[in-house]
C-alpha cells in the first residue's frame, strides 16, 4: 500500500516545483552529462532521432488539438454571432444579443442558482464526509478498515446511471422526491466512494510526526485534523473538489429524474430543455447559454489548477 499511497499522494504536491511533463527541454542540465558520455557511436543518429521525435511529438499534439478545438470554436463564435448556424464561422455581426436573450431569471439565473446550491452543497458534503472518513482510514488501524476500503473501491466502479430507477422509487417512498436537499444527499453519496479513496491516499502522504507532536501537546484527534492536517491537505482537497464538483455540475440524469418542479431544476436540466425546444432554431442563444453554463466549472478548474501548479496535477491522484 505504501508505495501506491506515496505515488498517488505525492504527485500533486510536487507539481509546483516540477511540472509534470517538463521533460528534457526544461532540464538540460540533467541531460547534458549523458550526452557527453564516451559512447559516441551513433550519437548523431540519436540526436537526429531525437529531433524527429520532437517533430512527431509537437506535430501530434498540435494535430489533435486542432481537431479537438473545432467544436469548441463553434460554441465561442456562434455565441457572439447574430446569425449563427451550425458551421464554425467568423461572425459577420458581432453581438451580445444572444447572451441578453438568455440572461433572465427563468432561463439562466434561477437554474444556475439551483445548480450552485445543489452541486455546491453536495460537493461540500462529499468533501466533509470524505475528509473525516479518509482521516479515520488513514490513521487508525481497526478490523473494519480493510473491508470498508474494499467496499469503497468496489463502489467507485458502480454505474450510477443503473440505479436511477430504484433511486427514484426510494425517493418516492422516503418522500424525498422533488426536493433539492434529498437530491443533494444522493449526489453527495454518489461522489463519496471516489472522494474517500482519493482523500485517504492524500492523507497517507501527510507525515505522522506533526500529529504526534500535537498529541503530546494535548490536542484531540479532531483538533489535530482541523489545525494540523487540513492546512497541509489543500492540494488534495482541491483535487477532490474538482473531480466532485465537475462531475456533479455536468450531471444531467440525476436531477432530471429526481427533481420535477420547473423552478427547482438546475442548469444541467434546463439547458437540455432549452435545447430540445429551441436548440435547432436558436443556435446562437444555445451557444451562449452553453458558455454561461460551463463558466463555473471552467473558472473553478482554472483557479485550482493554477494554485496546484498546472492542470496536469490532477492526473496524479488517479493513476493507480
Amino acid at each position: 500500500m505504501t508505495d501506491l499511497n506515496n505515488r498517488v499522494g505525492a504527485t500533486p504536491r510536487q507539481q509546483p516545483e516540477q511540472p509534470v511533463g517538463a521533460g528534457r527541454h526544461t532540464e538540460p542540465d540533467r541531460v547534458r552529462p549523458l550526452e557527453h558520455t564516451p559512447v559516441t557511436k551513433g550519437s548523431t543518429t540519436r540526436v537526429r532521432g531525437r529531433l524527429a521525435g520532437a517533430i512527431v511529438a509537437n506535430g501530434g499534439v498540435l494535430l489533435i488539438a486542432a481537431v479537438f478545438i473545432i467544436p469548441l470554436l463553434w460554441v465561442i463564435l456562434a455565441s457572439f454571432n447574430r446569425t449563427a448556424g451550425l458551421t464554425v464561422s467568423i461572425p459577420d455581426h458581432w453581438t451580445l444579443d444572444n447572451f441578453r436573450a438568455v440572461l433572465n431569471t427563468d432561463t439562466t439565473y434561477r437554474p444556475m442558482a439551483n445548480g450552485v446550491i445543489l452541486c455546491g452543497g453536495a460537493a461540500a458534503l462529499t468533501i466533509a464526509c470524505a475528509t473525516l472518513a479518509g482521516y479515520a482510514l488513514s490513521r487508525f488501524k481497526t478490523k473494519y478498515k480493510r473491508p470498508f476500503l474494499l467496499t469503497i473501491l468496489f463502489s467507485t466502479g458502480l454505474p450510477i446511471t443503473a440505479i436511477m430507477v430504484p433511486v427514484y422509487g426510494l425517493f418516492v417512498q422516503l418522500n424525498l422526491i422533488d426536493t433539492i436537499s434529498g437530491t443533494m444527499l444522493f449526489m453527495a453519496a454518489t461522489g463519496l466512494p471516489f472522494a474517500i479513496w482519493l482523500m485517504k491516499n492524500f492523507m497517507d502522504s501527510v507525515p505522522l510526526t506533526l500529529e504526534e507532536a500535537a498529541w503530546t501537546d494535548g490536542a484531540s484527534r479532531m483538533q489535530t485534523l482541523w489545525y494540523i492536517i487540513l492546512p497541509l491537505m489543500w492540494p488534495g482537497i482541491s483535487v477532490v473538489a474538482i473531480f466532485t464538483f465537475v462531475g456533479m455540475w455536468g450531471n444531467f440524469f440525476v436531477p432530471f429524474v429526481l427533481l420535477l418542479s420547473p423552478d427547482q431544476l438546475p442548469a444541467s436540466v434546463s439547458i437540455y430543455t432549452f435545447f430540445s425546444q429551441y436548440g435547432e432554431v436558436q443556435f446562437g442563444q444555445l451557444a451562449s447559454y452553453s458558455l454561461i453554463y460551463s463558466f463555473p466549472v471552467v473558472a473553478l478548474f482554472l483557479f485550482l489548477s493554477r494554485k496546484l501548479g498546472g492542470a496536469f496535477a490532477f492526473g496524479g491522484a488517479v493513476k493507480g
Partner: protein
Amino acid sequence: MKQAAGRGAPLVPATVLLLVFLFGPILWSIYAAFTNTSLSGAGAAHSQFVGFANFTKAFTSNGFLNSVLLTLFFTLVSAVIGQNALGLSLALWMRRAVAPVRAFGGAVVIGAWVLPEVVAGYLWYAFLAKDGSLNAVLERVGLHPQDWLFSLPILAVSIANIWRGTAFSMLVYTAALSDIPQEIEEAAEVDGATGRQRLFHITLPMIRSSIMTNLMLITLQTLSVFGLIFTMTRGGPGTKSQTLPLYMYEQAFSFGDLGYGTAIAIMLLVVGSVFSLLYLRMLAPETT
C-alpha cells in the same frame, strides 16, 4: 472498546450516506427487478411478483441484444481504443513537445473534459449535423457530406465520447510517465534502443499498472454514459445508438415499465461489478 467506537466515529456520516443512498437502492432494485411495477396502469397501483419474467424478456428481446452489442461497441471503440490510445499518445508526445505546444494542447484537451456532458453533446450535435462544421470541411476538400448522426450514429457518439474523455487518460498517463526515472530511458537510449523499442520494452511495462487502472476506470465511466448520447441522438435514429443506459431509460421512464427497466439496471450493475472486482483485484495486493 470506547476507543474503537471513537475511532469509527469519523466513518459514520459517510457510512450512513452510502448505506441509505447507494446500497439501499441496489437492494431495492434486486427486489423490483422481479416485479411488474410500472409508471402507469395496473402495475402502478398493485405491483406483482413475476419471477424471472423480466430477465427472460430481456434475453429474448431484440432491443436488449441490440443494446448490449451497441454498448460493447461504444465501450470498446470510445474507451478502450479511443480514449486510451489517444490519451497515451498525447501523454508521450507532451513530454517532448515544446512548452507553448504543450500548454495549448493541454488546454484544449482538458477543456473538452471539463465541459458539462450536455454541452459536449450539443457541440457534437452541431459539429456532425447535416449543415455542421464537419460537412463544411468535407465539402471544401471535395468529399461527400452526409448526415452523420443519422448514417453512423453509434460511431458519432463514440467519437464524441473520445473527445470528451481523452483528457482523463492523458492526465493519468502523464502522471504515471513522470514517475519513470529518466536515467532508465536514457540508459536504454545510450545502449542504442530505438524509440519504438524503448516504448514497448521499457516505458509501457513500467506504467503497466497505470494502464490497467485507467482501462478499468474509463470502461466503467463509459458503461454509464447517458447524457452525452441522450442529447446527441436520444438513442436513435430508431435504436441505432441505444446503449444499455438509454435502453433502460426508455423502457423504465418513456414506456413506464419500471420493473423491466430495473432488471436491465441489475444487469448493467452486474457488468459494472465484474469490472469493479477486476479493478479491485489489481489494487488489492497493495491494500494491506
